[in-house]
């Protein structure tokens, strides 16, 4: 690879596309980007005020309710309104002295309900402004929403097992910080599914925090005390469980631009293939990596620039200063994953129609991968599957551990590398301009690097990140099912694991046979099966990363990621058993792969059943 030529191709890519855009398109694009950049932080910060002025209230300036109506933008004050306006529907509420008259309509009832809440908030604000806060709030309760488990270590648990969370204000009235109540307890790490409830119950500090409480300090009436919001006081009735609105919006803000970006990127890659446009570049003295890198670089930098603006803007709104570096770093694997999947898709597609189908699939799958776990940021470790969780946590001012960053970013990074690698294998004359079907292209991509049996094992290892990401995505998607039935979610994840892993171990063997890479003999099938099984076993240990951050505490994750860390004399069994499983099932599939497609599918089905039976046995034994 020659950087100078790569950069020249990148510059050409920009010039070429700029030459194809007229001024009007450029202007519209710029306006859309500016609007998006301007509106997104506002939405993330709490909305754009779509409900402003939807209720009209007639109230005199000398009324004690005037301040209430004035303080709530939901209400529009109508001066000089009277009973007739209420009847004609020109106003919904009429304040008559100490009496509030309500229009006889559903909107009137809704306005009254809202007005009551506004009165409560107004009163709380008035009390909050009092000089004597003890008189204003004789009883103060700090509510702390805790994660079921906190792999990032943000709960303040110290090395000696004591906890310093919650009430570290030290007024001495509540729990102690000497660990006497829960010192040494490993709540959340012992795998108990009830770990999520003991965090807020037994920690001594949970009832006495006063002012300088823990990092996840409580709030009443507000789900997420972030993005510059002050704590709001209120009555216990205002307490509601946290709804991840901001997590959802933040994840959304970061993912949306990528979906637009991949449309342009996919188009430019596919256009090289249509009408053989890319042939002349292939015959020039540049490597295919220069071409791919050069064509990808502008889109990568563009995406990072947009994400950078969003990250810095949001960080400024949330924390009031410059920052967002971790967010930008965390977003990078997502950007690369989107680009690499699109690149591979563009290598597979035969027309823009097919490319549209592929990019829509990529959008749905990768948005789910990035988006769904991130909205559980405040709910549990499962959120760390998505790098966007790091973004949300940084913006919410939470600490991040190195292991959490590695766990979130490494699998998508490796998967992006895998996709780029497979796609670049197809970036050559005989595949680039070929009109074979999509499955045929997939087999081509897998078969290109394989010419010897050991390549099968290496390819299996290379596919591990994809397997891992697929399983993480399944875990994230089945997280909701787990809330209903852990057993059902566990079985479903075991099925997904078996299917994904067996195809990952054997599809490239079948692809190699379709390209006549190996003899179609039983002996060769066994050799390839062993190579793939051993390769998978070696690569699978990457899954241990999950255990660094305690993801296995999510029951489905534990099932999906091959159980916990074995200890003592059974360690050997825990190492040998999966090795045997992978070798046996890979060999079963390899035997089928030397025949027809039908025989391969039959064999891989048998392998999946064997794998599933093994997983069920292991999970039952562990349980």
């Amino acid at each position, binding site marked *: 690879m020659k950087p100078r030529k790569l950069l020249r191709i990148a510059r*050409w890519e920009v010039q070429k596309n700029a*030459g194809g855009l007229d001024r009007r398109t450029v202007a519209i694009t710029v306006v859309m980007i500016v609007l998006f950049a301007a509106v997104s932080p506002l939405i993330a910060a709490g909305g754009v005020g779509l409900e402003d002025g939807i209720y009209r209230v007639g109230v005199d300036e000398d009324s004690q309710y005037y301040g209430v109506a004035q303080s709530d933008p939901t209400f529009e004050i109508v001066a000089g309104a009277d009973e007739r306006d209420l009847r004609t529907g020109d106003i919904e509420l009429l304040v008559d002295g100490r009496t509030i008259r309500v229009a006889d309509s559903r909107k009137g009832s809704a306005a009254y309900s809202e007005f009551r809440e506004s009165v409560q908030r107004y009163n709380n604000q008035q009390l909050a402004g009092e000089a004597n806060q003890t008189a204003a709030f004789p009883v103060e309760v700090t509510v702390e929403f805790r994660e079921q488990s906190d792999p990032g270590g943000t709960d303040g648990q110290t090395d000696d097992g004591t906890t310093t969370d919650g009430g570290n204000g030290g007024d001495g009235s509540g729990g102690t910080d000497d660990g006497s109540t829960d010192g040494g307890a490993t709540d959340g790490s012992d795998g108990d599914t009830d770990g999520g409830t003991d965090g807020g119950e037994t920690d001594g500090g949970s009832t006495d925090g006063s002012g300088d409480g823990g990092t996840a300090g409580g709030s009443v009436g507000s789900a997420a005390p972030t993005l510059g919001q002050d704590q709001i006081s209120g009555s216990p009735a205002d307490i509601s469980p946290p709804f991840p609105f901001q997590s959802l919006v933040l994840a959304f803000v970061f993912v949306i631009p990528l979906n637009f970006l991949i449309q342009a990127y996919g188009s430019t890659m596919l256009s090289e293939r249509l009408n053989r446009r890319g042939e002349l570049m292939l015959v020039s003295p540049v490597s295919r990596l220069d071409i791919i890198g050069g064509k990808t670089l502008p889109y990568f930098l563009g995406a990072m620039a947009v994400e950078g603006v969003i990250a810095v803007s949001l960080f400024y709104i949330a924390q009031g200063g410059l920052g967002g570096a971790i967010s930008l770093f965390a977003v990078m694997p997502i950007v690369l994953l989107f680009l690499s999947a699109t690149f591979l898709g563009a290598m597979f597609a035969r027309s823009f129609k097919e490319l549209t189908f592929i990019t829509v699939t990529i959008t749905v799958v990768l948005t789910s991968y990035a988006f769904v776990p991130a909205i559980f940021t405040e709910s549990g470790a499962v959120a760390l599957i998505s790098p966007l969780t790091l973004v949300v946590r940084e913006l919410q001012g939470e600490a991040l551990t190195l292991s959490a960053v590695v766990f979130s970013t490494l699998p998508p990074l490796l998967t992006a590398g895998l996709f780029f690698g497979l796609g670049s294998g197809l970036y050559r004359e005989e595949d680039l301009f070929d009109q074979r079907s999509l499955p045929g292209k997939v087999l081509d991509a897998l078969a290109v690097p394989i010419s010897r049996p050991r390549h099968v094992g290496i390819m299996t290892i290379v596919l591990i990140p994809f397997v891992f990401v697929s399983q993480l995505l399944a875990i994230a998607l089945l997280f909701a099912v787990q809330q209903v039935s852990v057993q059902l979610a566990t079985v479903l994840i075991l099925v997904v694991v078996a299917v994904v892993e067996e195809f990952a171990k054997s599809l490239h063997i079948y692809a190699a046979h379709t*390209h006549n890479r190996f003899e179609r003999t039983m002996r060769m099938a066994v050799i390839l099966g062993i190579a793939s099984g051993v390769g998978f076993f070696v690569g699978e240990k990457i899954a241990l990363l999950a255990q660094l951050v305690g993801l296995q505490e999510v029951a489905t994750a534990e099932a999906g990621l091959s159980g916990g860390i074995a200890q003592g004399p059974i360690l050997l069994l825990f190492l040998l058993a999966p090795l045997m499983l992978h070798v046996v099932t890979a060999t079963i599939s390899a035997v089928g792969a030397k025949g027809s497609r039908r025989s391969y599918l039959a064999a891989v089905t048998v392998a999946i059943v064997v794998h599933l039976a093994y997983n069920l046995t292991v999970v039952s034994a562990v349980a």
Partner: protein
Amino acid sequence: MIEARDLRKEYGGFVAVDGSTFSVDGGEVFGVIGPNGAGKTTTLKMLAGLLDPTDGSAEVAGYDVSETEMRHHLGFLPEESPLYEEMTPISYLSFFADLYDVDSDVAEQRIHDTLDDLDLEHRHRQLGDMSKGMKRKVAIARSLINDPEVLIYDEPASGLDPLTTNYIIEFTERLAEEGKTIIFSAHNLFHVESICDRVVIMNEGKIVARGDLDQLRQEYGETTYHVYTTVELDDSIRENGRYRAVVESMDAVDSLRSAATEAGGEVIDIRTEESSLEEVFLNVAEAGTTGDRYVEEGRQ
């Protein structure tokens, strides 16, 4: 300058090129002809390093075709050369000059000189707005941007109007006169005949004939003798006050001469007519693919 040794290309079970062996000397114009699907383009693409041979090897300008350095010495013009239509000829050629490491000053001069030679106007118009002939001229200019010793032109005049076709053929002849080594493939055998020193004829992936044009005619063509006499003979036709008979051997000519004398007349003119390359090609194609029939025995 070009050496191909047992080049073979398979796509799955399909053999596109089966053991092609030939060489091209420096400064030579070498033609590759054959029907559609004969393996011409596949052979040229293997020589250009675009396709990896399933078996065999090839060298161009002293480099193995898999080496990147080889491409600095090669100008390749594919049968279809769709351009980046958003670009202008100048920006397009400048971009490729950069890829070929041509110094910017040299590139600028070379671009203008080549476009002058090709008589290409509207150099700042977007390529998408140009005619097919103009686009082809830009593609040819691109193949010359690195001033290569070897040119591989696959159907350079395919689909162009006769005027542009003639222009491009003449331009290719001028390149040959400048000493470029050219491999040239064309369906129009008249073009091949007019500029090629030697040709190979391919059919179903194999080279079925090769040699210079005289050798090919001798081997696969026919020489006919048109004998004009003052008297009517058997199978002769009257033509402008004399009689013409067509025979295919000198023995037959001698027989006609004797017959004319016996009839009281004489032979007044004998003209020979040789097969065109097209007729040679048709003869070879009709002969099928019974083997690689070498005209130049022992030549590699």
